[in-house]
Structure formats: structure tokens, C-alpha cells
């Protein structure tokens, strides 16, 4: 068969969103690849220049459907850096607990999509079912299921509801039991390992050079987790180990995310148990001073950075968002070339695409 270009997307079960992966195949072997993004560009950066600082928070929620809380948290961190606000301790603990729940929910959604990509329908349904547990707690905490609009500049919107700590600890126990089942279902399944091992190899040097961050980077053997290495919020007060794996393949990325879920359970337990009393929100000024603020967090998908320029009014002069997947997907050709068409779903699935933040 002659070589031909195949458009995988913009509407394709592999893409998890609206983007296009053009691959050149020789038979079933990929010889070239070219990701195309931009189908979901909503101009959020431009939109933010016309909104007040408070009004932007619900918009940053819309950056990523999988982990919207991280992005509004990142935005609030950035603006707090710009305004020079110290957030109350209790608010930081609530934020950390909520973000780690969001991380587990996001990773579960990734695992569900990954299972469906590889044809493991039971994995898809089970993960979506268990994600509900965390979504329900977040719903009781914030009032919404996907777009929480929960962090505020200078704290969080609400105090924790009654029974929050009991529910959170119960959910952690449930999740740890479930994770063991997943490990039995995924790791111990020979067919799953056949699809994952030695597939989508991304060397350590390549991963660092191409700007890959988050689980793909740690799956390539680089021990770099912003929560540990450049701590923000109250992460230094928690005990946890950033997950790494030296194998550089899809299985390593899968393993890193599973280990991160374990660590997130640990962090939630500590955050709930150590949560101090006090205020959860302070009055933030309406107008930001002139200057810049930068925030940097460990998103479930990688390193999220925001850079805000204030000009003394109540609206930001410029807001720049660094999406981890936007950079990671540019490394996709490096991983794809040489593998089979069927590996595309495994490789791109292991990157955990989220188009909302990629196209902004």
C-alpha cells in the first residue's frame, strides 16, 4: 500500500475534543505525524482583558472541563501574587483538599477515556462511576459539578459544609480500595500490558527539550513536581512523594498517574485532618496595582502557568495562560513515528488531551 495521510479528527473517537491529528501511514506504520489545534479557540486571553478580576474566575473555569478547579485556583494565585495578598491558612487548606480531589477526578476521567481508547469498556464505566464520588463532594463544597467557580482572590467562596471531613476521608478509603481493583484490572491484564509496554517512547532528554511537563515528564524519569520542587500554597506542609517512573513509555505515564492518585489520597487525608480554624476569605482590593504577577501550579496534565500584567485599574492589562497540553502535543510526532495506527490511541491517550485549555 502506498503511503497516505489520514486525518484523525476533528471528529474522531481518539481525539477527546476538537483537534486534528494528521498521520502519514505506510500500511499500518506511522511515518509522519502533524497535530493541528485551534478548532476550539475562544479567545479567552482577549476576553479577560475586558472583564474585572472577579468576573474572570468563572471564565478560567472554562479552560478545562476535566480539572476546572486547578485553573481558577491558578488564576487566583496569580492575581494574589500581583496584588500581594496573603491568603488565610484555612482557605489554603480548603483549596488544597479541593484541588487534590479535582486531580483524582481528572485522572479518573483520563483513566476512563484511556480504557475506552484501548477498548476496555469496563474500565471506562468503573472509572466514571468512581469519579462521581469526588464530584459529589466537590458539588456539596462548591455548588456545581464541573465548573466550580470556587476559589476567590483572597480565599475561597464558601467554608466547608458540615460532614465534609467525614465524606472526604470516606471517599479516600473508597478510592484506595478501588485503586487496588484498577491495578488488578489494568496492570495485571496481559493484553493491557501488551498495548502499553514499549509504546510511545519519549526519552528523558527529548521530554525535557520539548517542554513536556507533568505525568509524561515524570514518566520519562525526570523527578520534577512543582508541588514539591517549587512549592506554592501550603504544599510544603504535606508529606507526599512525587510519582516517577523510568520507563518512558505509555505504561510509565499510566503508572505515574495511578501513583499520583495514591499520593492525592494521602494529601487529602492530611489536609482534612490538619485543617485549621479561622477565616476562609479576606476582602480583596478591587483594583490591582501596576506590575506583574506569575503563578505556577502542577495541573493534572502538566505545568500550568499564568502571567498577569496589571495597570492599576480593575481589569488586567494582559493575561497569558500557559497550557501544558499545548506544548506537550507538539511533542506528539516524536512519540508517534514508528508505531502502528492502533498505538495512536494509546500514545495520545496517555498524554491526557484537554482541548479547552490547549486552544483557550
Amino acid at each position, binding site marked *: 500500500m502506498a503511503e497516505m495521510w489520514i486525518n484523525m479528527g476533528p471528529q474522531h473517537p481518539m481525539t477527546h475534543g476538537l483537534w486534528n491529528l494528521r498521520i502519514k501511514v505506510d500500511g499500518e506504520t506511522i511515518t509522519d505525524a502533524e497535530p493541528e489545534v485551534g478548532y476550539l479557540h475562544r479567545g479567552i486571553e482577549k476576553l479577560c482583558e475586558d472583564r474585572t478580576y472577579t468576573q474572570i474566575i468563572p471564565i478560567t473555569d472554562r479552560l478545562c472541563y476535566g480539572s476546572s478547579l486547578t485553573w481558577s485556583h491558578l488564576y487566583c494565585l496569580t492575581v494574589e501574587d500581583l496584588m500581594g495578598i496573603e491568603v488565610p491558612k484555612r482557605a489554603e487548606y480548603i483549596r488544597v483538599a479541593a484541588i487534590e480531589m479535582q486531580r483524582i477526578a481528572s485522572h479518573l476521567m483520563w483513566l476512563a477515556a484511556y480504557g475506552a481508547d484501548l477498548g476496555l469498556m469496563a474500565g471506562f464505566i468503573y472509572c466514571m462511576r468512581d469519579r462521581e464520588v469526588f464530584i459529589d463532594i466537590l458539588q456539596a463544597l462548591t455548588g456545581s459539578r464541573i465548573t466550580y467557580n470556587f476559589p*476567590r482572590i483572597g480565599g475561597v*467562596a464558601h467554608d466547608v459544609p458540615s460532614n465534609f471531613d467525614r465524606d472526604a476521608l470516606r471517599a479516600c478509603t473508597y478510592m484506595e480500595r478501588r485503586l487496588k481493583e484498577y491495578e488488578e484490572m489494568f496492570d495485571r491484564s496481559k493484553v493491557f500490558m501488551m498495548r502499553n509496554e514499549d509504546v510511545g517512547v519519549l526519552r528523558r532528554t527529548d521530554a525535557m527539550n520539548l517542554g513536556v511537563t507533568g505525568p509524561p515528564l515524570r514518566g520519562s524519569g525526570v523527578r520534577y513536581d512543582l508541588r514539591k520542587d517549587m512549592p506554592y500554597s501550603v504544599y510544603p506542609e504535606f508529606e507526599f512523594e512525587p510519582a516517577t517512573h523510568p520507563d518512558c513509555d505509555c505504561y510509565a505515564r499510566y503508572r505515574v498517574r495511578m501513583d499520583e492518585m495514591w499520593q492525592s489520597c494521602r494529601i487529602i487525608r492530611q489536609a482534612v485532618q490538619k485543617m485549621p480554624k479561622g477565616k476562609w476569605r479576606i476582602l480583596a482590593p478591587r483594583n490591582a496595582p501596576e506590575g506583574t504577577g506569575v503563578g505556577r501550579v502542577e495541573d493534572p496534565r502538566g505545568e500550568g502557568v499564568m502571567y498577569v500584567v496589571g495597570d492599576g485599574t480593575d481589569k488586567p492589562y494582559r493575561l497569558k495562560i500557559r497550557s501544558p497540553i499545548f506544548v506537550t502535543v507538539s511533542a506528539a510526532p516524536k512519540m508517534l513515528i514508528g508505531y502502528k495506527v492502533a498505538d495512536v490511541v494509546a500514545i495520545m491517550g496517555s498524554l491526557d488531551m484537554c482541548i479547552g485549555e490547549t486552544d483557550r
Partner: protein
Amino acid sequence: MSRKDELTFTGFVIRPMSRTMRTFVRALLLGKPNTILYPYQKLDLPPRYRGKHVLDFKRCIGCSNCAQICPNDCMWMEKLEDPELGKIERPGIDLGRCLFCGLCVEICPTVALHESVEFELADRDRSGLRFGPKELRDDTYADKVAEERQMRSLPVLDMNKCTGCEKCAGECSEICIAMMPIEATGKQKPEISLPKCTSCGKCAVVCPEKAITMSNVYESYFDMPEPKFILKNCTGCAACARACPADVIYMMDMPGTEKMLKDGKKSKPKKRAVFVLEKCVGCGKCFRACKFDSIEMPGVRR
């Protein structure tokens, strides 16, 4: 955890299949499946759930803060006539554009706006999603739900009664009341610094004219813009005082501005606006009502 060399023969099919079989047996024999049969069973929604809005007409003061904070511009203020409340202005919401972010509920200074747990809002027509104030009205809803917002008992000043006697300032143990002269009127008014106030209520007790009363006010986490008054432009037309939803603005005479009329009598003195900013909700209605650029509010759209 598990690696390739740990994989045994059972890994081919038996382990994953035994996992699914356990769920199968549990779902088939021991209990109900996990699904909720939606139209017949409903989810238990937490009280914080953000659904359709509910407006309490009696609490609402018509300040339009909700319409201003809305990121999508999906709220508007509607003028209407109510048999009980007279001529009022109340917000309406286009739920077809609403984000359900809850900022309008959070900013409401009197907690008149709530979000109910009702989420079944589908309609065959976009116009069916435009809820005017009358469709949102439910004056009993606020009493039914648990209050989330913190309340503080704070002194509220009525400038019509105040004589500027300084008794309240003398009584305040936290020294949070300062007497400030009002320019061009020859009077003075107490200015209360609310962050320092301990809600002790002594100022209200000591006031001979009962100009200061203690009342419960919801705490706000929003830094609202404050009106800045420019005396030289003011004509004393009282448009701002009529527009103010929170009774912040009082019109006071400026002695010495009387003009001699032709018949020898003196005209009434000119008036000026006086702001009691402790009560201000920052809505900007006075700014919009003023035709003479006498009020400035940076960052508020006209």
C-alpha cells in the same frame, strides 16, 4: 508496582474477567446497579447547588449590583409597579446565557437573590429562558434555606436626625467614630470605620436623637467602588438621592448661599448631597443619575 515479570498465566484473561464478574454478581444478585433512573428518581442535590435563581422582592433593594457583576451580561433591571412596594426596579435573568457562576448571589448586599436546586430548565424556545423579575419572585424562599452568609450588627446612621453632637464619638471605646465636618454646611457628621467596629452598640444607646441604630448587615467580600463627590459641580437637584437604593445620600442645606429675590425675600439655600458611605453598596446608580459630573466612580460603566 506490578511489572512484566510478575505477570502470570492468569493475567491473560482470568484476572480482569474475575474483576468484572465480581461486579456482575454484586449488581445482579446483591444490590441495585449504580445508575439513577433519572426522570423517575432524582439526585440528592446539596443546598449549595446552583440552579435557577429565586428573587425575594422584599429584601431586594434594586441596586443592580448583580446585573453589573454578571460576566455574561445576562441580567437586566426591569422597572415595575408592585401593589405592595410601589415603583421598584428588580433584576431579570436570561438563563439561556447564564453561566450559573453564582457571583450575582454572592454580591447581593441584602441576600435577596438565591439559587435554588431546580435544574430542569429546558424549553423549546429561547424566549422561554428569559425570566423576568415576576417569574423569579419567591418571597418565602430566603426563610426556608439555611443562611450561608455571615451577619454583623453594625451602627447605621440616619443623617436626617443627626445633629452632630459628638456624643457617639465620645462613647466609642474602639475610637472608630470620628466627627468629620461637612464642607459648606457648617455641620459635622460621625464617620464610622466599620472594620474596627466591635458591634457593642454603645453609640446607638447614647445617641439623643436616635439617629444611630444597630441593624444586622450581611458581610460582603467584594471591594466595591465608592462614589467621590465633587462639590463645585453639584446643583442640588437630588437626582442621586432619589436614585440611591440604600439611602446613602441626604440632601443638606448650604447656609450662605441664599440669594436675594426681587421681592426682598431670601430664597431657599442651595442644597448639596451628603454621603453616608458606611451604608453604600457601590452600585453606581448615583453616578449614573448625576447629569452634572458631580459624582465620580472610577471603574464603573455609565
